[in-house]
């Protein structure tokens, strides 16, 4: 948890459902865990001025982003009684319907996981320099803004 070099949270492309399933499986040896809570961000095929989003292309200020993810992780471990926490974010192209963010928290008791997960996701949205370029089906684009 207190490695000097932050973990790399980024994965190239979409996060697969198999990867998520395997992450869950890995926690089944940790028999002090009673509750897991998982957030998945999925790319929406939003229609904006008649044009449909076909994918988001993610870039990031990677060093700063990984440092921020690390700060968020440390703060969450301080605030909440968590057993485990994992964060993965996509870089590059993620098509509509695919998953771009995977946050996974586990604790012995359920009450804590709900609060922790929402805290972490909101912090990620607000603090981490990741930039999403919404690509429309006609190849035009706009820059996504979180709200």
């Amino acid at each position, binding site marked *: 948890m207190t490695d000097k070099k932050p973990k790399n949270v980024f994965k190239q492309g979409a996060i697969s459902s198999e990867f998520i399933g395997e992450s869950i499986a890995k926690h089944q040896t940790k028999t002090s865990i009673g509750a897991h809570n998982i957030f998945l961000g999925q790319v929406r095929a939003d229609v904006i001025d008649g044009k449909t989003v076909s994918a988001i292309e993610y870039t990031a*200020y990677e060093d700063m982003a990984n440092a921020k993810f690390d700060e968020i992780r440390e703060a969450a471990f301080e605030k909440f009684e968590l057993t485990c926490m994992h964060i993965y974010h996509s870089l590059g192209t993620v098509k509509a319907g695919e998953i771009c963010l995977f946050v996974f928290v586990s604790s012995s008791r359920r009450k804590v996981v709900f609060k922790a997960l929402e805290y972490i996701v909101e912090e*990620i*949205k607000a*603090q981490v320099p990741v930039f999403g370029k919404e690509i429309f089906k006609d190849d035009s684009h706009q*820059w*996504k803004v979180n709200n």
Partner: protein
Amino acid sequence: MTINIKYFGLIAEVTQHEEETMNVSGRFISDLLEALYSKYPDLKNKDFQVAQNQELVSENTELSGQELALLPPFSGG
């Protein structure tokens, strides 16, 4: 002072670079911004924050010579 600046997202579209090295006269982030606005007038209309050494800073912060980055609104997740 010679400073390395990184540009991201919409800002990189305006500057047409992802990174460049600039000479800045003056001690503050605001001095850097003046230089950038005169080189890239379109930046004035854009919403962005400045990070120095990977921490967000204000216009009144002193330039340290460390890595600078212009960051448009975050949209991760």
